């Protein structure tokens, strides 16, 4: 790790317990420490139900920590304040709003004047290939396009950190691969720092700079892998042809397998 690289987000022994005061507390996240560098994509891979989404909610400030701390830009996260942009498996587009008005949602919340917000949205829409669909309703778009609109909405808001929670898992295989490569290109171009939750190891390797493997619930960090090609190869399909890809894939696969099952 080079010292010049700036840390955008830092989790320090973050711990989340549900129903802590009750007789049956559920420890979802035991202790997670990780750092996200500016402009990097960090993937979190773990067995399903291991507490990844809980960790996400904690980073977004939607649920409180029971221990440790999470800070964004050096400031401790205490509540949701728009420091992170959220993108889920569900696109969560508002069906009654047009594409452009969906993209401006976050800006409206922040109190940006309508005209200005629309200008920003229009630029994003044109730059990323949705021109002509500004006034369509989401119901008229394909799943891949809808997710792209959701990404535009996240980008328009210019959050410090973008959280992607299995954003492609509801799409068919081809759309998924295409969108992975699009999203990777877009976040590189915009210089965004991203945490990506996925249980698709291939997706993690092809999109991320580093991959954090989590244990079963309660989640802790098991291993961290750095992809050897850095930012050289950005095409997710080309990445899959590299010899290191297979090697990494089976390594992570084994690490996940080794986790005890209940």
């Amino acid at each position, binding site marked *: 790790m080079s010292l010049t690289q700036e840390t955008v987000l830092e989790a320090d022994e973050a711990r989340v317990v549900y129903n802590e005061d009750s007789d049956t507390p559920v420890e979802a996240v035991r202790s997670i420490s990780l750092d996200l560098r500016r402009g990097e994509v960090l993937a979190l891979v773990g067995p399903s139900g291991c507490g990844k989404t809980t960790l996400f909610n904690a980073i977004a*400030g*939607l649920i409180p920590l029971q221990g440790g701390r999470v800070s964004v830009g050096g400031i401790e996260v205490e509540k949701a304040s728009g420091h992170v942009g959220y993108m889920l498996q569900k696109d969560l587009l*508002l069906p*009654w709003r047009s594409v452009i008005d969906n993209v401006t*949602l*976050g800006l409206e*919340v922040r109190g940006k004047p309508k005209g200005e917000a629309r200008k920003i949205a229009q630029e994003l829409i044109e730059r990323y290939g949705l021109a002509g669909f500004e006034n369509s309703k989401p119901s008229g778009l394909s799943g891949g396009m809808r997710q792209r609109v959701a990404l535009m909405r996240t980008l328009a808001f210019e959050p410090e950190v973008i959280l992607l929670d299995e954003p492609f898992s509801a799409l068919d295989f081809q759309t998924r691969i295409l969108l992975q490569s699009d999203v990777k290109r877009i976040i590189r171009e915009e210089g965004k720092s991203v945490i990506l939750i996925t249980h698709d190891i291939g997706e993690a390797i092809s999109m991320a700079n580093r991959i954090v493997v989590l244990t079963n619930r309660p989640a802790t960090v098991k291993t961290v892998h750095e992809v050897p090609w850095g930012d050289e190869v950005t095409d997710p399909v080309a990445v899959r042809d590299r010899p290191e890809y297979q090697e990494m894939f089976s390594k992570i696969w084994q690490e996940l397998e080794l986790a005890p099952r209940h």
Partner: protein
Amino acid sequence: MAMATDIGEAKTQTAAPPAPKRKPRKAAGRWRITAYQFGVLLALIALWQVGLWTGVLRPYIYGTPLGVLQSFATQIANGTLIWHFWVTAQEVVLGFVIGCSLGSLAGLLLWLSPLWAKILHPYMIALNGVPKIALAPLIIVWFGLGMESKIAIAAIITFIVAFLQAYKGTQEVDQDLIRLMKSLGASQWQTFRKIVMPGSVPWIVSALRLNVGFALIGAVVGEYISAEAGLGYMVYYSGQLYDLNSVWVGIFSLMIMALILEAVVARIEKLLDMEV
């Protein structure tokens, strides 16, 4: 006067939002269906007439098609039918508008206070279960014998239905959307305005549909109990006099009113649908 208890009333079911529209049928098919619809009407009237001719139906118990027509003509000519229709229409429409608008507003606003929603929960269940028309005699006592009491009955019943449906709508809004708004740093009011209110519109609209019927029941039953004018009054009064032909005229007039109101609500539905 035990008429009120004879009026069966469906419990307020939480109707699901309308399904996506189908393609409009071809014009030719639509005309054929209209023709069949008139055919059914004519067949029923013919059956009625045949029943009278063969002696299965007694004219003084069932009325006669011709007698209904005569009664209709007389009452149109002397203006009484128009007058009764006009009185009931005002009661229904005013009650409907007051009840639906205040009820929907109250149901939406309740989202802002989960505490009050919890406090009011048992009351909502009780209101949902009780045959709302049972309130009618009370309201007559409070509001008197004039039109005001019928407006009040229709308004109170439709208020309850609109209130419950609108609140239900707010509860059906995707929790992930609310999480998304929170993560954006939205205030509760912003979430309400931008997500909860527009998201509840399909529920509010389906309540309008239900409430056309409830407003009619409210006004008519109110007139049964005690009134000086209106179609309900006319039906009840004619029934007492065994003037079955006039009873039928009143019932058919109420059906026509229901059809008109349904058509108006369908229009509103379409307008809201376009905006939403």
